[in-house]
């Protein structure tokens, strides 16, 4: 997108008045690779439309860098509509920035002309930096593999009324199922704990009948895996839930703890 595009876009809706775009200073974490030392590098972008998403603003910067023959900033993204969970970065010290949404759904109108914006990758041992702002979140995949599934035959969908689920439970399960695995909870947590993510999965599957047979093993194995991956332990501070773009509640963590302590008492032990 060129500077003129930005200016044109921003004038939409304000007929007559030619609103100018924003000029911003960006301080972005640049790191060549996983085992290389990184540092914050300062860039300027000009004439940014308030209607752009944060990622579009980074696109503008990258076009600028490519034209100058520089290495563009690596950042993850996919759907750009808030459902894939790929795009998380730390913006001015907040996971996904100042709004409780995903980075791709954050718009530049959340910032003011002349702002300096710090952009950093998620920081956690379990999420090593691949390059610049892109981190390896496969630790989440392995937590899912440890128990975040149900074992049922696939094929034709069963008749919807065959297994009734109380409305209250299905609502809570659906709320928990909205987790997109973005990792903001880990990034925001002072302990770098993945508890909210794991608790969302445990709640989602543990509240529906299909999740019951594996319920005890699931929670024990998923918690063992998250510890093994090197995430921190939860101390119920609540930064996770307040930073979660899907608003997953702290209640899920209590439910995980409840299930885990019950499962340990019942003799469930992690697979080794």
């Amino acid at each position, binding site marked *: 997108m060129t500077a003129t595009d930005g200016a044109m876009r921003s004038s939409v809706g304000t007929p007559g008045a030619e609103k100018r775009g924003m000029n911003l200073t960006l301080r972005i*974490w640049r790191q060549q690779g996983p085992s290389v030392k990184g540092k*914050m590098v300062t860039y300027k972008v000009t004439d940014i439309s308030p209607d752009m998403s944060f990622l579009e603003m980074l696109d503008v910067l990258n076009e600028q860098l490519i034209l100058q023959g520089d290495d563009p900033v690596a950042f993850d993204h996919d759907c750009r509509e808030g459902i894939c969970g790929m795009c998380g970065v*730390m913006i*001015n*010290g*907040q996971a996904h920035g100042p709004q409780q949404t995903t980075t791709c759904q954050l718009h530049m109108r959340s910032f003011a002309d002349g702002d300096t914006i*710090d952009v*950093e990758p998620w*920081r*956690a*041992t379990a999420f090593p930096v691949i*390059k610049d702002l892109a981190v390896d979140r*496969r630790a989440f*995949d*392995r937590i899912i*593999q*440890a128990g975040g599934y149900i074992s049922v035959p696939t094929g034709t969908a069963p008749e919807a009324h065959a297994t009734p689920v109380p409305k209250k439970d299905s609502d809570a399960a659906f709320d928990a199922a909205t987790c997109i695995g973005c990792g903001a909870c880990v990034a*925001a947590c*002072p*302990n*770098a*704990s993945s508890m909210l993510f794991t608790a969302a999965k445990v709640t989602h599957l543990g509240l529906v009948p299909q999740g019951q047979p594996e319920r005890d093993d699931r929670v024990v*194995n998923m*918690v*063992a*895996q*998250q*510890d*093994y*991956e*090197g*995430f*921190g*332990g*939860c*101390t*119920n*501070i*609540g*930064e996770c*839930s*307040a*930073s979660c773009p899907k608003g997953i*509640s*702290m*209640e899920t*963590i*209590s439910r*995980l*703890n*409840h*299930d*885990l*302590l*019950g499962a*340990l008492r019942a003799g469930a*032990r*992690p*697979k*080794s």
Partner: protein
Amino acid sequence: MTVEHAQRRTPKVAKTNSVFKKAVMAVSGIIMVLYLIAHVVGNLKAFSGAEAFNSYSGWIRTVGNPAVPGQTTLWIIRLVLLAAVVAHFWAAVSLWRQAKRARPQGYVTKKAVAQSYASRTMRWGGVIIAAFIIYHILDLTTGTVNAEGFDSTPYDRLVASFQNPFVTIFYAISVILLGMHLRHGIWSATQTLGQSNRRREKTVSLFAIGFATLLTLGFLLVPFSVLFGLID
């Protein structure tokens, strides 16, 4: 960027997982809280004068006599409390180290959006509380660091200690830290033991604030009464 298939690594840890440690912390914390409730009520005996206070202190040492001989009951309480402190401390240090390992490199810029002063000071606050507990025992139980020395009465030691404004201030800071520790601790323990939910969250928070405030005020009452000469 290469994307290999994610491997399932086998967990090595068995029972001592992070949630188990938190449960140890919650249970030991609750044991200490129960003791503190009895302790704060006992302290108020100071308002009934030297004799009542000293005989209360003597009573603690002989509870259950003659069915349970000598100081048995007192020692059982002491050992349970010691076990609770050790377990609590072990779990705290172990989770602290786990958190350090989980993020060796911090953010250049980090903004807190939800954490309270109480939740942020659990660890260092806990360490100060531990130091205070040691000082407190050497001062009022054994008399080792008390101006009145070993062979004084408990009441004399109490008055001698809190007539010194520095002692009272250190005491006040520690007890206020303890109050904050419990403000977050009670909410945290409810979560850890899996007893919280969306409906209860507010009630638990309000209870935690109310309980912590009452307990702190209760503990502050006697030292300040000594300092201002209401008890002498």
